[in-house]
């Protein structure tokens, strides 16, 4: 097996790339490469993963300049030049090596009122939500987000406006706006309107282009823009 030259980010924001040679294997993923380095070449390498099968959203990194989920990214697909460069996600503070601090990313989900607020209690009967209902289909289109942060890292508006809630948080808010069982709608629409919210989106569609689950946060954000217009025109504080 030939060796792959791998450049790996080491240290914090002011760190540097360190080079390793890693044996190539068939169907090898970028996460396999990083794991090989940590287990066999340098046990001090910090990185984050859990499920290894594209469910948990914890292993996202910047691979050859592009944010990706590393557990489902084959080396063949991204290292055509024979060099692999792995860095932490951009638009987030670096903790160490390949670990980005996801704190602000998830705080923004809370700011966008991404929490389900029930209308019923356990004493009530089940809500009937038809799968072919238009609102339910809108919610279904965005519901498979795994919270990996790839869209947040890919977004230009996040880079330009540090208060911007970002594609994932707004996508989450849109799924709840379309949830007939939720009671927090007015508060949620207020939270996602304005400069830090959906109206800052320039529809560059980087989030949609990079989302490993092939969701379209851009579509969700467009939905939020429509949903908040009536509030702006009504004279109420949206």
């Amino acid at each position, binding site marked *: 097996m030939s060796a792959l030259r791998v450049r790996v980010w080491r240290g914090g924001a002011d760190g540097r790339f360190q080079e390793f040679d890693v044996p190539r294997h068939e169907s090898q993923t970028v996460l396999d490469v990083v794991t090989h380095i940590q287990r066999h070449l340098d046990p001090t390498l910090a990185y984050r993963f859990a499920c290894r099968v594209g469910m948990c959203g914890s292993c996202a990194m910047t691979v050859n300049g592009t944010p990706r989920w590393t557990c489902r990214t084959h080396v063949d697909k991204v290292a055509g030049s024979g060099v692999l460069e792995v860095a932490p996600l951009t638009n987030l503070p670096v903790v160490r090596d390949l670990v980005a601090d996801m704190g602000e990313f998830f705080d923004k989900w809370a700011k966008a009122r991404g929490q389900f607020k029930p209308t019923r209690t356990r004493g009530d009967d089940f809500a009937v939500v038809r799968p072919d209902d238009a609102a339910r289909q809108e919610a279904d289109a965005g519901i498979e987000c795994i919270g990996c942060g790839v869209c947040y890292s890919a977004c230009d508006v996040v880079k330009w406006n540090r208060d911007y809630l970002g594609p994932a948080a707004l996508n989450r808010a849109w799924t709840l706006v379309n949830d007939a069982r939720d009671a927090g709608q007015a508060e949620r629409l207020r939270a996602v309107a304005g400069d830090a919210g959906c109206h800052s989106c320039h529809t560059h569609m980087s989030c949609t282009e990079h989302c490993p689950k092939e969701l379209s946060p851009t579509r969700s954000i467009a939905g939020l823009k429509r949903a908040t217009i009536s509030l702006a025109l009504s004279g109420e*504080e949206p």
Partner: protein
Amino acid sequence: MSRRFEVRLWVAQRATAVVLAACVVVHLAVIIYAVRGGLTAAEILGRTRGSVAWGVFYAVFVLAAATHGAIGLRTVAAEWLGFRGRAAEWTMAAIGLVLLALGLRAVFAVVAA
């Protein structure tokens, strides 16, 4: 700035874009029509002088362009230069008013009999 203000600016930006799209189409169509037999100042002024319709059309065009331009520059200044807050708001309002004044002056110059 309040969320309501931000959302209203966003709506104004989209609404003026719709107006501008229509105005630009009419404007380009008139240019193509007007130059078919050569272009002279006399011919243009003959069409616009004393015309309430052209006066209103270009006044609306200018108003939409000044509004759209000022809101757009405000966003560009915030995102690319980090220029935000009260000083930015006043600067962009001033730019919008200057654009409006220059545009309306030009409209007046070709429409006034």
